[in-house]
């Protein structure tokens, strides 16, 4: 109780310090074309929800951005988990895919942007493709290393009791890999968010990232700052939801894990 109160106090203090430092810098620079202070940004943030044209802009941008993140992430999970499991289970698949997965994993997200632009133009579809490409290899790598680390004795035990291949897969390997799959999802969602935002910033006409970049280009820095706050809240919300889901899904496993300080 005391601990959580202290934590809350530090958090509130941090926010205050942040706002104060921001305010002092903005006041010292005193040029709204270089940096806008917290007050103007806060006003712009309120206007986003009270000014009807801005609210419409926010709603449509938000809808596109959230849909792109969800679609890219879902596709990456649907493709990444089976590929990771197959790579971990079958040596041939492993040898065949492993170099490619590592190569594609090390390509920075921004390099996919012009390629996707060629394929599907400056559109939300391109954001989805980029989010998918940047997320899927993270998911594959985590699922793969989870399957590889499934204890051999678990599988041997299943085999000895005459489990079929399907049963080994669904009753032994998948449950034992679940914690790694969840880590993959947690890392994956933040990559999907980043991929979509990067794509939208370069496209400048798609989604909330586009609205934000466009506002900055038109020197509406307060609006741009307010949209950054919205995007930050959206990313935090996504990360929290996935974290919550994944923690619930592996609660049984963590209850068996060693107790840490």
């Amino acid at each position, binding site marked *: 109780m005391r601990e959580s109160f202290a934590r809350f106090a530090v958090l509130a203090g941090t926010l205050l310090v942040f706002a104060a430092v921001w305010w002092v810098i903005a006041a010292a620079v005193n040029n709204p074309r270089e940096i806008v202070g917290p007050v103007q940004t806060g006003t712009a943030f309120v206007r986003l929800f009270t000014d009807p044209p801005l609210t419409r802009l926010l709603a449509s941008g938000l809808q596109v951005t959230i849909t792109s993140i969800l679609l890219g992430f879902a596709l990456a999970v649907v493709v990444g988990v089976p590929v990771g499991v197959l790579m971990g289970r079958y040596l041939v698949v492993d040898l*065949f*895919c492993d170099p490619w997965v590592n*190569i594609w994993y090390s390509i920075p*997200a921004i390099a996919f942007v012009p*390629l996707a632009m060629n394929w599907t133009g400056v559109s939300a579809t391109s954001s989805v493709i980029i989010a998918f490409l940047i997320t899927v290899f993270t998911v594959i790598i985590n699922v793969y290393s989870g399957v*590889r680390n499934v204890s*051999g004795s678990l599988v041997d035990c299943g085999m000895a009791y005459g489990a079929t291949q399907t049963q080994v897969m669904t009753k032994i390997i998948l449950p034992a890999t679940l914690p790694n799959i969840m880590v993959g999802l947690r890392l994956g969602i933040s990559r999907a968010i980043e991929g979509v935002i990067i794509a939208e910033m370069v496209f400048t006409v798609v989604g909330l990232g586009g609205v934000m970049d466009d506002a900055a280009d038109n020197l509406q*820095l307060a609006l741009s700052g307010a949209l950054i706050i919205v995007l930050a809240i959206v*990313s935090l919300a996504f990360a929290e939801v996935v974290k919550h889901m994944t923690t619930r899904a592996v609660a049984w496993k963590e209850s068996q894990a060693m107790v840490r300080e």
Partner: protein
Amino acid sequence: MKSSAGTPFSVKLGIFAASLGLFIVVWEVAALSAGNSLIIVGPVPVLQALISLLQNHLPGGTLGIQGADDAILQTLATILFGFILACAVGIPVGLVMGRWKKAEMLIDPWLSAAYSIPIVILIPMLYFAIGADFFAEVFVTFLITVSTIIVNTHHGVKYVSNALAEVGKSYGASERQFMAKIILPASMPDIISGMRIGMGRAILAAVLAEVLLSGNGLGGMMMTFQDVLDTPYMMAVVLLIALMGIAVLQLPKLLERRLFRWREMESLSRGIGR
């Protein structure tokens, strides 16, 4: 579980060659079936464009951009300066956070904010505050990389085995010896994993900063070719960025191998990435 460690190298090489062949065939088929050089071109034109880029020939219609050698140097310099700066700041901050609980409590909210919000959204705003020159790009690279370095260093120090720490204390190690001889070596695997992941972040940050800020370097070159719809050259630069990324990522791995020759690679920490 089957392991890939026991497979002979020749078999691995053969299978990799087969998968490389398959990749090239799929690429060529995709290019042929698209039949439109504005969408995708096959491997041959891209390789030709890559070779002519490396010989510093630029196609017509792209006057006023850097040659490929300058672009590569600039991007590399941005990555390395930003990365080194991030290490120089991030490792000490992580050490302090892991060692003293008060510091941890003060810094942690900043860190988790920097870690769970995609910092890249700040780039368009930063343009107005810091401009679009080389230093601005190094700063962006630093900003995006440093939290990864801090988080991994912090994690490494925090979970240094208490047995090690107790031995040091009971033999009367001074604070300085304690840090230099016990904490730092014991948390080195995590620091290096942080550097490995951070290097990936630095590559992304540097190229993204070039695309969004200055339009120089490989990132700027890539978008210039995209703007003039020169697909072979655009894809050649993408390939170049990918190759450079893979090459630069080997640096932390080399360091890891040098420092931990005595240790089984697999037992090293995988690190905390995003």
